[in-house]
């Protein structure tokens, strides 16, 4: 028996050591695969036609239709070519340029107001397996991406196309001609076509459900092909020499390392292994700004970080005696007053620290208006400042005083302590994260200084989404990033039936509240509602925007919609997002777009 024991033990140890040794030798052994571990990164970075970057961890999917993440969009933009693409002109300005299409044609308006576009594909377009790319592949891909059956997060990007979601009006009249009909003229149509959901995929390729998870089945048509994917480690893209524009693709190989640990990204950036990292530890930001003034980049990103009130939350004191329209207007006035108690400059400078811009409107910086100016600068129609309230540092004290005066109309104010004594207790809901917590703590302390108690409650992400969507909260953290440069993407989410209507406009008790007014008679519309419901006002104006073909009028309607939205006080913008990344100074020819996508195809190192 003892012999047996000894043998078992010895065997266990030998196996253990063998396996242990295995783990250290697998890295060099794996170098013949493009997916090597850290050790091989340094020499790869030293050559000028290969670049190592890290933009995020393992993507959920690299199927362009199913992807809804910024990192997935960056990857698919290198792997696929749509009809249009983001590019830089000679002066370095971002433009939307034709990609697979020979040109981005103007639409032809039909009698019923719909608009038809006809595109011709370039000659010699190929899939990465050598087959010809046809217009029919585009038609198939678009119909698939929009379909209810696929249920893609970004299916709604096809909402502008006639027949959405399941009868999409897009047809290939021959192998090189694609005809698509939109419900009405859409200002951002060319930009939509540069969006990953609009990239072509081939029917026989995607018939295999797992096609997008393995390089051997990943057939694409873009500047690069996927040549390696070690899950949770690295994705390797290699230049596609059959790409029609291969002559202008300077970077031969891109290794997208997969990590979601900002500290890890930073140490790999510092030791020169990764030349671009898309995230840095928040607490390192002040130091990095000093140490790497040329490599620490802050770019505007079209998005707003905001606080969202549940419109059905009763915040009036028990003895207010207000009902109906009066009560609703009072609540709006109170919410709009509380908005002024927050010092947004403090939030961006002391807490977020990433160069964010204090926000005073919901439609963010970066969205253009009808005349090409910034939409947010024209919002609120105020002189001397942008947006709906003045968020400059100098204005804070006056804002604060004004807010106190407004709140005094509804609540008991103790002059000796400077506190309100009968404001109902609020709860601020956020998803578990240090950053959101720090902001929540500030918001809570700002209210506590005037006697309003706002408790903090955090929930794990998925539970949080569920709670917020169902309106089981009083005040919640929220944020929204644009998918295309048009303010409608920030406005149509607040219609009654929208799945993103977290504020619960027109839902629950608010459904029957008649407190909203809308007068569009000066714009030539037969709409003049006084004290109507949300559905009779906001839903109506969004409908008009979606069918409006007059650009100037359409943008004016969007300003009116935002006015109505902001008048409720339910949306409390805090700051406009920025995209922070670090780029090694040896890299040239890199660019990113306002949606946060990064482009490496024209990069050179040296």
């Amino acid at each position: 028996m003892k012999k047996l024991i000894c043998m078992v033990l010895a065997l266990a140890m030998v196996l253990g050591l063998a396996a242990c040794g295995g783990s250290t030798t697998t890295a060099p052994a794996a170098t013949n695969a493009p997916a090597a571990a850290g050790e091989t990164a340094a020499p790869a970075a030293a050559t000028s036609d290969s670049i190592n970057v890290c933009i995020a961890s393992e993507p959920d999917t690299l199927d362009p239709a199913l992807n809804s993440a910024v990192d997935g969009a960056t990857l698919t933009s290198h792997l696929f070519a749509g009809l249009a693409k983001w590019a830089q002109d000679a002066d370095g300005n971002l433009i939307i340029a034709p990609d697979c299409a020979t040109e981005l044609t103007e639409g032809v308006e039909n009698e019923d107001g719909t608009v038809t576009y006809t595109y011709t594909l370039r000659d010699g377009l190929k899939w990465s397996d050598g087959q010809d790319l046809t217009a029919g592949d585009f038609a198939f891909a678009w119909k698939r991406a929009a379909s209810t059956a696929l249920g893609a997060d970004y299916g709604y990007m096809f909402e502008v196309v006639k027949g959405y979601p399941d009868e999409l009006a897009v047809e290939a009249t021959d192998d090189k001609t694609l005809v698509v009909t939109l419900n009405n003229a859409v200002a951002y149509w060319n930009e939509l076509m540069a969006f990953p959901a609009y990239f072509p995929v081939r029917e026989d390729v995607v018939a295999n459900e797992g096609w997008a998870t393995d390089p051997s089945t990943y057939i694409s048509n873009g500047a690069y092909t996927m040549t390696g994917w070690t899950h949770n480690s690295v994705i390797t893209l290699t230049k596609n020499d059959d790409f029609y524009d291969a002559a202008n693709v300077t970077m031969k190989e891109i290794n997208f390392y997969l990590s979601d640990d900002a500290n890890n990204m930073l140490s790999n950036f510092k030791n020169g292994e990764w030349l671009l990292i898309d995230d840095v530890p928040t607490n390192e930001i002040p130091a990095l700004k000093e140490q790497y003034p040329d490599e620490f980049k802050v770019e505007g990103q079209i998005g707003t970080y905001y606080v969202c009130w549940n419109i059905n939350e009763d915040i009036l004191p028990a003895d207010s005696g207000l009902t109906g329209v009066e009560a609703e207007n009072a609540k709006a006035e109170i919410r709009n007053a509380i908005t002024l108690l927050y010092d947004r400059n403090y939030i961006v400078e002391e807490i977020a620290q990433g160069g964010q811009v204090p926000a005073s409107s919901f439609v963010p910086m970066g969205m253009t208006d009808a005349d090409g100016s910034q939409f947010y600068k024209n919002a609120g129609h105020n002189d001397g400042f942008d947006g709906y309230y003045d968020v400059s540092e100098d204005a804070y004290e006056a804002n604060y005083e004004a807010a106190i005066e407004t709140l005094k109309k509804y609540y008991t104010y103790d002059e000796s302590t400077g506190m309100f004594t009968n404001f109902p207790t609020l709860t601020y809901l956020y998803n578990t994260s240090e950053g959101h917590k720090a902001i929540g703590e500030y918001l809570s302390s700002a209210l506590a200084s005037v006697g309003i108690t706002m408790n903090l409650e955090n929930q794990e992400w998925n539970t949080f989404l569920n709670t917020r969507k169902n309106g089981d909260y009083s005040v919640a953290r929220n944020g929204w990033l644009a998918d295309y440069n048009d303010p409608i993407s920030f406005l149509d989410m607040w219609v009654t039936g929208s799945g993103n209507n977290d504020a619960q406009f027109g839902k629950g008790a608010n459904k029957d509240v008649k407190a909203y007014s809308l007068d569009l008679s000066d714009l030539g519309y037969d709409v003049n509602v006084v004290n109507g419901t949300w559905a009779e006002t906001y839903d109506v104006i969004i409908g008009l925007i979606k069918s409006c073909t007059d650009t100037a009028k359409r943008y004016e309607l969007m300003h009116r919609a935002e006015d109505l939205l902001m008048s409720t006080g339910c949306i409390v913008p805090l700051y406009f997002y920025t995209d922070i990344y670090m780029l090694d100074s040896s890299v040239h020819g890199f660019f990113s777009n306002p949606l946060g996508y990064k482009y490496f195809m024209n990069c050179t190192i040296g």
Partner: protein
Amino acid sequence: MSSKTLKYILKRIAMAILTIWIVITVTFFVMRAVPGGPFLSEKAVSEAAQKALEAKYGMDKPLMVQYFTYLKDIVTKFDFGPSIKLRGRMVIDVIIDGMRTSVKLGVCAAAIALVFGVVLGAVAALRRNGFADKVIMVLTTAFISMPSFIIGSLMVLILSVKLGWFPANGETAKGLILPVIALSLSPMANITRLTRSSMLDVLGQDYIRTARAKGVPPMKIIFGHALKNSLIPVITYVGPMLAYIVTGSLVIEQVFAVPGIGRAFVSSITGRDYPLIMGTTIVLATLIVIMNLVSDILYKLVDPRINLE
């Protein structure tokens, strides 16, 4: 092997299967009772699309039907189904991918714990009450009482963030060094203590005294007689140790961002990826059950004095 032993083993296997079935059942229903769902995202999909997705994954059927379908697929086809969040990937592939890393991590940790534990334990016993013994005993007490996630976090803070000697994540081979150490310290300390006390016990036995009296060289006494016999309790500890390493790696993989099955398990929960939650839970539970089973059986084989009933 006696029929009594065989009966015992069969009984234990039956118990193991029952345990796994209970784990499956409880996980299935608790998971579905938690708020949220796999199709929730910041950008909400339309209700029609949500219905279509639910139908695709069979989630439109009554919960009991889904439960029995799931059980049937597992038992008859060993089919864990597709992942919902990682679209296009099968749960079994995600698990295998994760296991590659986790097994590496776990086996290394177990080997280190065994080798160093036995050596340190023997040293401590031979230098009883000496300086080495005292140092070893203080350290092992510390390692046993400190949870692995505290040790792990401290190591990340000091060795990765402050000194920068090791990567803070376990995505590379070098990155696995810290998690392996963090995971092995506690079982190593246990083995050290076990070896020490059992070695002291053996060293006091008559046959050792006889060997000494006969003039057998000290090295031969230690390696030829003492160590061999003092390893019996260590063997019985291997099962629980492996179970500890499996559960411990859940935490360690989070602390060090190791892309193993533990991390897949946690992210499947945050994403409400129901099939992946079930798959990872079943695999981890099965591993633990098997290890305990093997350990119990080994225990009996090693020491016939143990009463199986």
